[in-house]
Every structure is written in structure tokens, then in C-alpha cells.
């Protein structure tokens, strides 16, 4: 028997994987960081790592389709004369006209209205299409103040002061020149075609003491009628929520790192902020410690995809959730019917995230009139409404199985975790045990 040198299988590095190598080559060629849309794509502990226990000997279930399981939520009851009354606890997150086409904004308004929920403006002001088709519209108050004016403020049903978002806590908005058309430019008081990098801090206040006065001003301007939301990126949820309560917020939105953005540096999206799952319990804890849980409402966003996720977020203490990326997918974003065009753009359906380039084959993240015309706002709105209804039905199914007659009656005791990490973050026991890692330190 003779021995030769046996060949080894070529081995690629985990550290320098194909994506990493391609990114190094891309950076070396172009001299600019990679910009893209959407949220974190890396795998992080998420709602998939939690399970509901369902009813058993100690709890009895409610009959599916027969016994009631309510889904309504009131947002803004702390100070506002006119809080929002929504049929479902799933709202549409802020996305700007500019990053999205006018048809897409209209479709979001239509879908939300049919489903009985709210939609939200973005960094670029309120468009007539959106206001016209949205029964309940939340008007974002952002550092850039693009398109901010008292007339639209008074037309809004609520005001959301944006301090940060999950995809980029600490980062400002970004809309590159390709999408700054005449109309977008006019709404933002900017020259056409320039790269628009919004400020990351508000221009006229800094810190929670100032924010308290800013909220007072907005309440005075609107005669204390409109709920005031404060939105933060998932960074320091316990302290951010506590400070937002102190500042006088009616509603607090906490957006985890899977939450999407129209355009930001890849390195920012993937390396700054915390997973949504890790944000909820500290946020709820802050409200509970201040005696404000259910008095100041908590909206959780970032990677909500189905009724299971909705139910889990609510079980952990949220009053409602918000969706952005999933809503765009419901409209038609990344749909495989456009695969040939995605391939021409060097990507594939499901991975397309160059939203900043304005070439979206689905007509959603674009200002190109031809592409935009592909999206029928009525049909797309109907699709979104269907999706919202399905999510609600799914969440109700789970809640009934856990014996609850309202989604808000879901509780952490309905859950267990599949991983130690998820158990620690969600503060529920590891499946089959009574072990909540870190419980003794709370």
C-alpha cells in the first residue's frame, strides 16, 4: 500500500466569509461605504426563540371563532384630549415620502384605514395622498424638520417626536440625490439632485429637560388635543423610556435593530443598536417602575412579521406593535414576480435593499414615474389590509389558546424560551425549566 498526500477540501474562513470578502473588494474599488435600506440582516435572538405554552390543566382556552378576543387599543390617553382609538394593535411605522413613492404612501394609508389602524409620515413632510387616504395619521417631528409646518401639524391625529430609529440609533436620515426630484426637493426646501443627509440631533433641543419643554410647546400649539409619541432606537431602552415618561410623552415607540431604514451605511445597520427582543422587557420595566405601564403606551417595532410576533410582543408588555418592512413586502416589495429585473440590478427577490438608488422594480422605493406607476395604490392598500387582518387573526388565535379575551391580557407567563439568550432577554423561563437567566439580578 502506497501513501500519497491526500488533498484537503478547500476551506473558507468564517471570519472572512464570501460576503466579507466581496465587501472588502467593493470598498477598495469604490472608496465609499456601502449604503442600503432595510434593517439588520444578521441573525439575532428574536421572537422565533420564544414559544407560547397554550392552555392546559391550570388554564382553560377560549373557543376559536366563537368567544371574543378583543384587539382594540387606545394610544395617548395620558394627556391628549383626543387619544387614538385603533381597532388593532398593529400600526404602520414612519416612512417618508421621498424614500417611498407617492403611490406607496397612499397605499399604506389605504391599507391602514381599511384595517382600522394608523399610519405615519416620515422625514419629508405630509403628502396630500397620504393624508387623504389615512383615517388616522401620525405626523413625525424629526431633526431635519423637512416639510414641518403648523398647518399639517394641526391636520395630524398624533405627533411622533423621533429621537432615533432601530436601524441607526444616533444616525440621521439619508436620501441620495437620485431620489430628490422636483417635488421631493420642494417639500424639503433643498436643491434638486443633491444628497440629503438629515441631522441626527434636533436643532432646538438637547436632552430630556429640553424635550419636556418641546413637548409642552407642541401641546400648546395643538391645544393639548393630539397624543405625543416619542420614538427611540433600541439602545438604552430602560433609561430612554423612563426619560420619555419624565418628558411627558403619551406614547413611547421603541424600535429594535431589525427595524428598517430607507438608506444608511451597512456598517451602521449591522453594528449599532440592540435586537428588538432585548428592548421590550427593559422598556416595560421602566414603565412599571414609574407606575406608568398601560398609562403611557408602549409600541414595539423592528422585525414584526406575523401574528405570532405581535402576540409575543404584547405578552412581554407592549401595548401595540408597528411594522415597516413587512408592510412594504405586503405592498409588493421584493416580490419574485420581478425576479428578472432584480437580477439586472445584481440582486435577487428577497435580497433587494438598494432602496436609495430609486430603481425599485416594484415601484415602492422610487421616485421614477414609470416605476412608481407599477404600484396600484388601491390594490396594494387592499393587500396591506389583508395582511394586517391575517396578523390580527393569528394573534387572536394564540391569545384564545392561552385563555385570553383581549390581546392585552397576554402575559410573560404565557411564554417560554428556546435558548438561554432569549430567556435572558425576554425574561421568561428556558423551555422545560423555571430558569430565567439573570432573574436574581433584577
Amino acid at each position: 500500500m502506497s501513501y500519497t498526500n491526500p488533498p484537503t477540501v478547500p476551506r473558507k474562513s468564517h471570519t472572512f466569509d464570501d460576503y466579507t470578502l466581496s465587501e472588502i473588494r467593493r470598498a477598495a474599488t469604490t472608496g465609499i461605504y456601502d449604503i442600503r435600506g432595510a434593517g439588520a440582516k444578521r441573525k439575532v435572538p428574536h421572537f422565533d426563540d420564544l414559544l407560547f405554552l397554550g392552555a392546559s390543566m391550570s388554564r382553560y382556552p377560549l373557543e376559536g371563532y366563537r368567544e371574543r378576543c378583543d384587539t382594540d387599543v387606545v394610544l395617548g390617553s395620558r394627556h391628549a384630549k383626543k387619544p387614538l382609538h385603533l381597532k388593532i394593535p398593529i400600526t404602520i411605522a414612519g416612512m417618508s415620502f421621498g424614500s417611498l413613492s407617492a403611490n406607496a404612501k397612499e397605499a399604506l394609508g389605504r391599507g391602514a384605514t381599511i384595517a382600522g389602524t394608523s399610519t405615519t409620515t416620515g422625514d419629508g413632510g405630509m403628502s396630500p395622498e397620504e393624508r387623504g387616504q389615512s383615517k388616522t395619521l401620525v405626523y413625525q417631528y424629526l431633526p431635519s424638520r423637512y416639510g414641518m409646518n403648523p398647518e399639517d401639524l394641526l391636520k395630524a391625529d398624533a405627533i411622533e417626536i423621533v429621537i432615533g430609529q432601530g436601524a441607526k440609533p444616533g444616525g440621521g436620515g439619508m436620501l441620495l440625490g437620485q431620489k430628490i426630484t422636483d417635488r421631493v426637493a420642494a417639500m424639503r426646501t433643498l436643491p434638486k439632485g443633491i444628497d440629503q443627509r438629515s441631522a441626527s440631533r434636533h436643532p432646538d433641543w438637547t436632552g430630556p429637560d429640553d424635550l419636556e419643554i418641546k413637548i409642552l410647546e407642541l401641546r400648546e400649539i395643538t391645544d393639548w388635543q393630539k397624543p405625543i409619541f416619542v420614538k427611540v432606537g433600541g439602545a438604552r431602552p430602560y433609561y430612554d423610556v423612563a426619560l420619555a415618561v419624565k418628558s411627558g410623552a403619551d406614547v413611547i415607540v421603541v424600535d429594535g435593530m431589525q427595524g428598517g431604514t430607507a438608506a444608511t451605511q451597512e456598517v451602521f445597520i449591522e453594528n449599532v443598536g440592540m435586537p428588538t427582543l432585548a428592548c421590550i422587557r427593559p422598556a416595560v420595566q421602566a414603565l412599571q417602575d414609574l407606575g406608568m405601564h398601560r398609562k403611557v403606551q408602549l409600541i414595539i417595532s423592528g422585525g414584526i412579521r406575523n401574528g405570532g410576533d405581535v402576540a409575543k410582543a404584547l405578552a412581554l408588555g407592549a401595548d401595540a406593535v408597528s411594522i415597516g418592512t413587512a408592510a412594504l413586502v405586503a405592498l409588493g416589495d421584493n416580490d419574485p414576480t420581478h425576479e428578472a429585473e432584480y437580477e439586472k440590478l445584481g440582486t435577487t427577490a428577497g435580497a433587494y435593499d438598494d432602496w436609495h438608488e430609486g430603481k425599485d422594480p416594484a415601484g415602492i422605493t422610487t421616485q421614477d414615474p414609470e416605476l412608481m406607476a407599477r404600484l396600484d395604490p388601491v390594490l396594494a392598500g387592499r393587500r396591506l389590509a389583508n395582511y394586517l387582518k391575517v396578523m390580527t387573526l393569528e394573534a387572536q388565535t394564540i391569545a384564545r389558546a392561552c385563555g385570553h379575551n383581549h390581546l392585552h391580557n397576554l402575559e410573560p407567563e404565557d411564554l417560554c424560551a428556546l435558548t438561554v439568550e432569549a430567556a435572558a432577554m425576554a425574561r421568561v423561563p428556558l423551555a422545560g425549566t423555571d430558569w430565567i437567566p439573570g432573574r436574581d439580578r433584577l
Partner: protein
Amino acid sequence: MPTVDLAATELRALNQALHELSDGTNESRWEIVNPRGSHAVAVGVNAPVEIDIRGSLGYYCAGMNRRAKITVHGSVGPGVAENMMSGEVVVKGDASQYAGATGQGGLLVIEGNASSRCGISMKGIDIVVRGNIGHMSAFMAQAGHLVVCGNAGDALGDSIYEAKLFVRGSVKSLGADCIEKPMRPEHIEVVAKLLDRAGITDIKAQEFRRYGSARKLYNFNIDHADAYG
């Protein structure tokens, strides 16, 4: 003429009363006394009325003003006339930070000095400051005119877009992408008109220098990365 004593009247009641004013109201002149440094006084007004405030104020006086002429016979805290759309706000004393921030229209006159970030992110407002302005003024200023009869602090006009800045005195330093530009006759005319509207008669428009955007940061270029700081 209605006189509102803020020592005896809730802020909410004052602002509500001002919001209920309509065009052609007989109550076209208001006086507010004893403001005692209150925040958010006379915010969101939308009527062609004149409001005189006797005393100094806190944050956001005259915020989001539309059409009213509001005169403060004292000094103001941060964010006076923030996001003003139209009308006129006159401050007889000094102004703190962010005066006229994000304003989209109207005229803000500060007869004393303004602190840092005066005209930050301005979007069409005209601001005339009789005295000096602090650092980082006109940061990311998009549109409108800032006329400063005194001196400007550090980093004037950092990351400026299309706003036009005019300073009569010294500029401690210019911010990224802000450069001095020639004063042409049309600029002298603009400054002269604004000085006139501000009631400043002892200073000549020809004494100002003009600053604005070099427009080098409008589209990202890696070779300009140092300018992004």
C-alpha cells in the same frame, strides 16, 4: 386691547385664546404682562394681530408663528420663533440658542445679541441680528437670509445649503463648505431692505460681507471626507 396677565392666567388659556382669533378680529392688539420667563408663550398663532409681551421669556416664544407680529420687550430663551412660517417677531433684548431654528418664512429681528446656533436649519426665514451671534450659527441652513450687524462666532454656516449669510463684523471661523462670496448690487439691495424692515437706519448695507455654500458637499465624494469632520 386685551391684556393678559400671565401671573393670573394659565398659559393654556392664553394660547387657546390666541388660536381662536380669526382674520378681521377686533382684538387685533394684545398685551401680555408678567410672563416671568414662561415657555411656549404665543406659539402657533395664525392671525394678523400684534402682540406685545412685556418681560422676558423662556423657550420657544412665538414658535411656528403665522402672520402675527410679536414683540418681546425683554430677552428670550432658546428657540424663539422656531419654525416660523410668516409674520414678524421682534426681540428687544437678547436671544438664547437656536433663534429662528428651521424657520420657513417671516422676519425675526433680535435687537440685542443671539447665542449659538442662530438660524440653525433655517428654511426661508429672514433673521436680522443687531448685535453678535454665537458659534455654529446657520448650521445646515437651507434657505433665507441671516443678517448680522455685529460679529459671528466659530463655524458659521457649517454644512450650509442655499441660505445667504451677511455679516458686518468679524467671523471667527467658517464651517465646512461655507465660503465668502462677493457682495454684488443685488445682495446689497437685499440687506438694505432687511435692515429697513428691521428698523435699523444707522448701518449701511455696503458694510456687510456675504457668505454661502461652496456646494462641495452636495454629493458625497470620498476625497472630501476630511471636510465631513
